[in-house]
């Protein structure tokens, strides 16, 4: 499934607006913000259609998956947006993760617990909020989603340690960009440990935002509580940075409308899509991309400078210090 979907759901009391653009969207946040009510409306509309008095506007089918015969139902669903409430215990199961991979569906999952088996994006974790101003005018509750994590870099940082998720090409590239140690954490689940153990005074953590969702709550909560001078930079992935840098020619829409290209049947996350796109589009050229080993063509001063140019200004190193 590809595409971006605007969803509008309402009855005479509440009105929801959502936009879904990836295969996995997470809804969490405070109690009593209307998450369960949203699921209830979709479920009731499914059972009774227009007779429910509920309106659901979406270009594809919206459906609710409950614990009852979930494998059977999910196996039969295609081209749908599947809403799942936190009361469904199966969302943390290995079998569910297996069925999400390759599914021709998008999933909107209400959960505060991390789903460690699924690579969801930090960009697609939302809360629900009510627009009170509209309530006063229309006597109806207007609920919309908002991004729970601000993934922009707002703090100026000259790092004395750069942490990356792993030792792949990204790490090798950032080691050349920054004039300080660049250490791999050994996997996304190890990022917290590395930050916690580090005694460095300014740490830049570069993660693959497209798949770091399950770790984001833990790491950001720790950073809020600790006094570490640590900046989290979460581009979609290292491959995304290369594609954005202009080192190779990439049509604008691939990066601006990735939802039209990253088919959920083929890619579990946009990270997988960008990697695949980069490998395919550089095959047979001097920029042939290898995820585990950064090629020589990516290590030249010119290409490194192009990658530096797409980093946020606040964490950009001096051009002279980059090796």
């Amino acid at each position, binding site marked *: 499934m590809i595409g971006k979907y605007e969803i509008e759901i309402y009855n005479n*009391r*509440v009105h929801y607006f959502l936009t879904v653009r990836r295969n996995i969207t997470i809804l*969490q*946040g*405070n*109690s*009593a*913000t209307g998450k*369960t*009510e949203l699921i209830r409306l979709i479920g009731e509309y499914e059972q009774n259609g227009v007779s429910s008095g509920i309106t659901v506007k979406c270009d594809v089918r919206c459906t609710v998956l409950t614990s009852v015969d979930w494998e059977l139902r999910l196996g039969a669903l295609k081209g749908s947006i599947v809403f799942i409430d*936190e*009361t469904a*215990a199966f969302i943390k199961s290995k079998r569910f993760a297996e069925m999400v991979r390759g599914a021709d569906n998008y999933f909107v999952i209400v*959960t*505060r*617990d*991390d789903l460690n088996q699924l690579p969801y994006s930090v960009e697609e974790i939302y809360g629900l909020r*009510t627009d009170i101003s509209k*309530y006063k005018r229309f006597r109806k*509750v207007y609920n919309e989603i908002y991004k729970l994590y601000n993934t922009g870099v707002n703090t100026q940082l000259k790092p004395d340690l750069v942490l990356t998720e792993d030792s792949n090409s990204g790490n090798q590239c950032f080691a050349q960009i920054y004039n300080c140690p660049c250490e791999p954490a050994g996997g996304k689940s190890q990022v*917290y440990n590395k930050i*916690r153990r580090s005694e460095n005074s300014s740490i830049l953590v570069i993660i693959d935002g497209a798949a770091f969702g399950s770790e984001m*709550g*833990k790491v950001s*909560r*720790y950073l809020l*509580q*600790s006094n570490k001078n640590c900046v989290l930079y979460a581009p979609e992935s290292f491959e995304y940075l290369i594609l954005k840098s202009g080192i190779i020619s990439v049509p604008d829409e691939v990066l601006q409308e990735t939802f039209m290209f990253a088919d959920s049947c083929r890619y579990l996350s946009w990270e997988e899509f960008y990697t695949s796109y980069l490998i395919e589009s550089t095959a047979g050229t001097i920029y042939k991309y290898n995820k585990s080993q950064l090629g020589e063509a990516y290590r030249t001063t010119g290409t490194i400078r192009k990658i530096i140019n797409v980093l946020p200004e606040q964490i950009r190193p001096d051009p002279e210090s980059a090796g």
Partner: protein
Amino acid sequence: MLKIHYGELVSEKYIFNPDAFFNNTYEDDWIVDPLSIQMIKDIDGSEVVGPRAIDSPFLGLIPTERLSGGVKTLILMNKDQEHIFNASACGDNCAKWILHIARELQNRRKDLLIRLGYLMDFGTEPFEIEVENLGIIVHNGKELVETVLDNRLL
């Protein structure tokens, strides 16, 4: 004392879905209890009309079964000490009430044991919480987060 089991919990007393459990077990007097009335007002913004009717500013007059999952779980924590409830049904806005219920129970020499699957924000004031998996008592948010994550409980 508030005791929290982080991560998965296997126990006959464990209630994974407090929302459904509440609907089928609540007593009328639970709803008109002064603490329940306060929590319903604070979390849901609703007034208790009676044991089976709630006046929601957004949804109108609703049955008790349509209270939020968070407030239902809080009421269960306060009224049913026979079970261990999944506090992941509660958002951060429930944290102060969980601490309050635990303090009230402590005055009656009882503990409150709950399960959490995420790092709920218990605020900036000092507190006393036992991380039940480890038997370690922590006193502030930083200690709590570090204890849970250092021991890979989540």
